[in-house]
């Protein structure tokens, strides 16, 4: 008997992944695996200057290159712009249009100017070299100081001082007096480098017009299929019905693919013009330099403390460098609004003031990236606590203990109500693990030998389960949040479930099936998930903000329960009993008889009645077996939480930061599949460490990006990423139908703060404190080996 036959629920167990068989066999189907008869291949002519007016764009020589079939400029295709909007007054938000192909001006190196279509990708690339573009260069705007200057050159004429978003969301009355009267005020000035989310599968799409369906079929790797459909239909002036977006297997996204890319729309436009399928696969050079980037932020923050180390007030100024364009649908507001709304995090902050700005510069545009501003503001707040602990002579963990929220639900100064979590418990457990393993003793012993070992923590929450109301608070004009699921049983008793979320590695095919199998008492092998197809899935907001299991999974569960109710009603009618007497479990439909008798039907037998013998159904039960449910979260969302503890050693001669130990204590409520949750933690931590120590896209004075290959962009490997031990706590969530809180982003949120704190702990004897990530070996080396004073 399998465990499921014994009636034990599947939720909470690490069952084998449904995805694995095809993926380990090389039988996954990623977008570049698609081949259609007559398919052509596209590449993009991209700007080589950061800022300039386009004086002329001559594609005639391109069209003569052998193997090139066509080349189109913006004027040739005449398609609409992509414009992301916030419903905010102009003083707070300036909308800017992102043309699918640059028309009059280029605004970053790598901006697409023309699409070249060839018989294969090699031929299309040959064509690129024959493009002739003349620019009237403009001074590039590359940094905060230049962008915000009174006489700044403008990236977009409509955005004065290059400011797209400027919001002052919270300002507690009398906050200045609190700072004036405080026992201690500490300040930090934190900057974080520009990063690439870097899914290993680059972006790409295959588009063609399907005459029979009278539809554009756009197969693209996106986290947000329905949003791509909306933009494609509007840019191409088609009814939404006439666009079908299908997402094949996806090689990661991490947020870079949760916005609409101009290239996928251009490829679709070219396919319509040519009447042939067009494939575009981004190469790594373009993916590194010209796809959506993230993370470049600057925080000036201060905090007031009393003599006991309790925080009294937090005051912050946040500037996010969003690059050349606002992304759809989130806009340039995504980062400053996230930081402004949520910075107090897991701490009881009584007074709060924040200003958040998004500036536009001549760099590749940004998109949300795993964590969205939280890796940064958690780092800022954790740095403030570390600094206060030092100045007040307190233990860094103790000062956190005194300040974390312990009474739930807790409504913060940021007008957000936090649902129950294990902030203090996770902090205590994490410290205990590190202490019990002897790392504090190791640190002391190492110091005596002149070695530099440091211990750092980060305690944080991850707001997930953003429903429509939470996004509406952000004043998005396009408001994400809900999800719809349909569960359909066929005559054989097998089930198909749809979700509007889109897995790009998070194991939805398995976890959603676990939820459905439990609700229907059905063998998991008989459940199949449909995702990422706008024709099969009614509607959905895709996968971002760790919303798949919280929102999407809840819709799946509710729909499955509704279908279960119908199965019970039919069985009850057949047995002439009440639905309450019918149980769905262990792959069977059972009647609980008072006399010990136990009637049993199979799911198939019920399904056959529902479809093939509808004459047997009572009048109040409709034939067929489908159920639909919509789920939305109407409060402020739900907050998974974690504490990360890191031990590092700094190497005197090389400046290398070596991670000796990494401990993660996480609480994401009910874990549907613990192994998947651990995988999300570890993968997230690896990306967080990457941001803390390795990855950065810099620009030279002309606006050329530094990172155009893996020789320049240092993605950490198995030699740099340590083993991570993950400890689970479980505070079930009352706001989701699954009891789960999101688990996708926490690792990335906690790691930079924990690593930075550990490095600063190790640097303590030197008197140097670092407030910029990535922490390079050069910086550490300088701190450890200061120039002798002449």
């Amino acid at each position: 008997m399998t465990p499921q036959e014994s009636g034990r629920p599947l939720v909470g167990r690490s069952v084998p992944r449904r995805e694995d068989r095809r993926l380990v066999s090389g039988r996954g189907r990623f977008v570049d695996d698609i081949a259609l008869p007559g398919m052509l291949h596209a590449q993009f002519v991209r700007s080589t200057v950061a800022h300039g007016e386009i004086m002329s764009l001559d594609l005639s020589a391109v069209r003569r290159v052998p193997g090139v079939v066509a080349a189109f400029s913006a004027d040739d295709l005449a398609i609409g712009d992509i414009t992301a909007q916030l419903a905010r007054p102009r003083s707070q938000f300036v909308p800017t249009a992102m043309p699918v192909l640059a028309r009059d001006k280029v605004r970053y190196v790598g901006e697409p100017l023309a699409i070249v279509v060839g018989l294969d990708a090699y031929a299309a690339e040959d064509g690129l070299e024959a493009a002739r573009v003349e620019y009237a260069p403009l001074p590039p705007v590359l940094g905060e100081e230049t962008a915000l200057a009174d006489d700044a050159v403008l990236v977009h004429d409509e955005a004065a001082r290059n400011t797209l978003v400027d919001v002052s969301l919270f300002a507690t009355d009398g906050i200045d007096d609190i700072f004036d009267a405080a026992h201690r005020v500490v300040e930090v000035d934190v900057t974080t480098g520009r990063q690439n989310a870097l899914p290993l599968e680059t972006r790409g799409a295959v588009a063609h017009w399907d005459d029979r369906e009278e539809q554009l079929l756009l197969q693209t790797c996106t986290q947000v299929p329905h949003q791509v459909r909306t933009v494609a239909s509007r840019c191409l002036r088609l009814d939404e019905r006439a666009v079908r977006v299908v997402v094949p297997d996806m090689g990661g996204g991490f947020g870079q693919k949760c916005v609409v890319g101009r290239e996928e729309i251009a490829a679709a436009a070219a396919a319509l013009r040519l009447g042939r399928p067009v494939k575009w696969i981004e190469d790594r050079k373009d993916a590194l330099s010209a796809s959506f980037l993230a993370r470049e932020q600057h925080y000036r923050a201060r905090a007031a403390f009393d003599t006991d180390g309790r925080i009294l007030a937090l005051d912050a100024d946040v500037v996010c460098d969003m690059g050349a364009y606002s992304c759809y649908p989130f806009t340039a507001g995504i980062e400053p609004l996230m930081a402004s709304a949520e910075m107090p995090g897991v701490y009881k902050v009584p007074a709060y003031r924040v200003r958040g700005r998004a500036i536009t510069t001549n760099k590749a545009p940004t998109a949300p990236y795993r964590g969205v501003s939280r890796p940064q503001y958690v780092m800022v707040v954790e740095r403030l606590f570390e600094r206060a602990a030092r100045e007040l002579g307190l233990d860094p963990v103790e000062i956190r203990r005194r300040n974390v929220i312990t009474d739930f639900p807790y409504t913060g100064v940021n007008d957000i109500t936090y649902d129950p979590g294990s902030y203090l418990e996770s902090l205590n457990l994490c410290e205990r693990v590190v202490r019990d393993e002897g790392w504090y003793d190791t640190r002391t012993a190492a110091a005596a030998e002149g070695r530099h070992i440091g211990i750092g923590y980060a305690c944080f929450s991850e707001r997930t389960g953003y429903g429509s109301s939470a996004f509406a608070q952000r004043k998005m004009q396009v408001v994400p949040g809900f999800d719809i699921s349909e569960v359909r049983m066929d005559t054989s008793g097998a089930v198909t479930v749809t979700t509007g979320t889109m897995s790009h590695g998070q194991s939805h095919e398995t976890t959603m099936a676990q939820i459905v199998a439990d609700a229907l008492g059905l063998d998991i092998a008989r459940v199949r998930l449909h995702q990422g197809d706008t024709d099969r899935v009614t509607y959905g907001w895709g996968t971002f903000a760790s919303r798949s299991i919280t929102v999407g999974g809840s819709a799946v569960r509710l729909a499955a329960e509704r279908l279960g109710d119908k199965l019970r009603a039919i069985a009850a009618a057949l047995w002439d009993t009440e639905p309450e007497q019918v149980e769905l479990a262990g792959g069977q439909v059972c009647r609980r008889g008072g006399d010990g008798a136990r009637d049993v039907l199979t799911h198939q037998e019920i399904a056959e009645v529902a479809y093939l013998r509808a004459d047997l159904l009572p009048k109040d039960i409709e034939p067929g077996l489908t159920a639909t449910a919509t789920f939305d979260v109407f409060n402020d969302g739900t907050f998974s939480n974690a504490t990360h503890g890191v031990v590092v050693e700094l190497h005197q001669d090389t400046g290398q930061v070596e991670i000796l130990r990494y401990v993660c204590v996480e609480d994401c409520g009910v874990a549907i599949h613990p192994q998947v949750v651990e995988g999300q933690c570890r993968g997230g931590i690896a990306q967080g460490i990457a941001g803390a120590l390795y990855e950065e896209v810099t620009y030279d004075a002309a606006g050329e990006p530094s990172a155009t290959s893996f020789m320049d962009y240092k993605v950490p490997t198995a030699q740099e990423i340590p083993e991570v031990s993950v400890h689970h706590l479980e505070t079930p969530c009352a706001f989701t139908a699954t009891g789960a809180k999101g688990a996708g982003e926490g690792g990335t949120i906690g790691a930079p703060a924990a690593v930075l704190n550990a490095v600063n702990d190790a640097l303590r004897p030197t008197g140097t404190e670092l407030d910029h990530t990535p922490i390079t070996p050069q910086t550490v080396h300088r701190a450890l080996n200061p120039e002798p004073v002449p």
Partner: protein
Amino acid sequence: MTDDTLMTPREPQLIALNVNGEQHEVITEARRTLVDVLRHELRLTGTHVGCEHGICGACTVLVDDRPVRACLMFAAQAEGARIRTVESLADGNRLSDLQRAFGEHHALQCGFCTPGFLMLAEGFLAERPEATKEEIREVVAANMCRCTGYQTIVEAIDACATARRRACARACPSKED
């Protein structure tokens, strides 16, 4: 080399490739890489392209039993060699022990880099069946994964190697002495 043997990159040529034990003849341009010919000419799409400059390892295949980057090799250079791709690992529908270990240890999430890691490990374990976990970690560092944090990949390969050694020890008891 005389001038008449020089070919322009676009000039098609006939090449013969031995892939997964099958002989293929392909007419293709001299400039096409091995990974492109495997994927687009032979439709063996299990091998993936991640960077086209030899760093990420998603395109790793075995050439004469050794892991190589199929993006750094022209298809023509692989003539006469035995090429193995991820499609060769399973025996029909029966997954190999290495493939099963990846699933059991959750060594893949999106699965895009997975064929490259599988072929890397397949080649490495054949050469060094006694590899320690540390050696495995060092070899795994040849390829990039963006989802897992690598730990479970190392664990999967180590578990597979350990199981193979145990099976071998049982099959050859004399070796235990």
